[in-house]
């Protein structure tokens, strides 16, 4: 657990440093790291990795952090000008876009509190995953 926290701290520092001058790269790194955690969660659910309660909770902590850090990484100046799959709809519906991150953070916090075993993790993880998909549905370009 301690190691995860330290790693998350390092990662947060990196994101902060990059964010100042390149929000597109920063949000891509943030999403990638969040995805890594999500993949770790999926591996436990699929039985490819043993269930670990600390790890499970840490996944939801990462997602809460993402929910806080992501919105400022979409300034008006970052609609284009880099490799981005962010759709213009984000800036047309900024209030909804940000409200979704608020909801993601709240859902991840509730999920962190609710998880006690693999079964409750599966339910909680699935619920939070719907927030991810809901936002990608509207605000991210189809990609391969």
């Amino acid at each position: 657990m301690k190691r995860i926290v330290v790693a998350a701290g390092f990662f947060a520092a990196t994101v902060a440093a990059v964010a100042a001058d390149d929000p597109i790269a920063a949000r891509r790194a943030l999403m990638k790291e969040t995805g890594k955690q999500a993949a770790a969660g999926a591996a436990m659910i699929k039985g490819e990795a043993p269930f670990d309660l600390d790890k499970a909770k840490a996944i939801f902590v990462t997602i809460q952090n993402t929910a806080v850090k992501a919105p400022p990484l979409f300034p008006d100046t970052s609609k284009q000008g880099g490799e981005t799959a962010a759709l213009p709809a984000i800036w047309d519906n900024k209030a909804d876009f940000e409200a979704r991150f608020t909801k993601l953070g709240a859902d991840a916090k509730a999920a962190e509190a609710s998880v006690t075993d693999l079964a409750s993790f599966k339910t909680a993880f699935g619920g939070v995953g719907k927030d991810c998909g809901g936002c990608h549905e509207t605000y991210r370009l189809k990609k391969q």
Partner: protein
Amino acid sequence: MSLMAGRYVVLAGLVAAVVGAAAFWIITTPSVVPASALPAYTPSIDNGRTMFNAGGCASCHAMPGQPDRLKLGGGLAIPSPFGTFYAPNISPDAQDGIGRWSEADFVTAVLKGTSPRGEHYFPAFPYPSYQHASLSDVRDLFAFLKTLPPVAGKVRGHDVAFPFNIRRDLGGWKFLFLDGKPFAPDPAQSEAWNRGAYLVNGLGHCAECHSPRNLLGGIVAAQRFAGGPNPEGKGWVPNITQKGIGDWSEKTIAYFLETGETPDGDSVGGSMTRVIRNMAELSDADRMAMAVYLKSLPPVEGPPKPAQPATK
């Protein structure tokens, strides 16, 4: 040229024109399934629900901008290179939906792509895939749709420009791209594989988006499932042959269909999000069957992507 020979030429021309017109007429006549072709049957509403989810009906026909996938008032705009289609109301509303349709009307629509008025539907309605569904599954689906709430409100007409708006011509399109064959199981394959093949190629209609299309809007058969440009606009639809997802296990594919989560932890977006909402309602066994079939698709190279780094 003598007068006599000239007459023959004119006559031959007339005959060719008449034969051509007759051929056009025959080829483009919308086919129907008459009520007399439907034997007595007690439909299963439960199986109808499964078929509703497998078919992804809600993806296009649920009213946009509200959360209830069972409110099938339609209205979703579906852009395409030929114009914009608007998903019709298929709720059981008698005025604006399909409340007055007979069972034969519905079977004809789904299996033949022909409306109760005897017109061809545009293949934005994925009947090139639906035609492979079994008659009993389609009848069950109809019975299930009848249990849903009626939604009032007619959907606006499609916005399709000449010449594509001539529905009669779609008979020619069907002649080229519809085989009219029901799904035939492969006895050499497992039961799960056959179930998966049936769901993926029939009601699931995966190939409709995950395949490149030719200039006439038909699926390029040799590149079925190999992905291509997003027919609805920007972006790219992924290759789901083993060329594209060779490193996904069957379990990974089934998990993806349930959750929308890819092996790298990404959560899928765009219209696939709606597809996942349908797939999530299926049984584990059905999702696994689809995974078994998809995993068996030989690797096929898709069309070349525009020179731009893949966003990953």
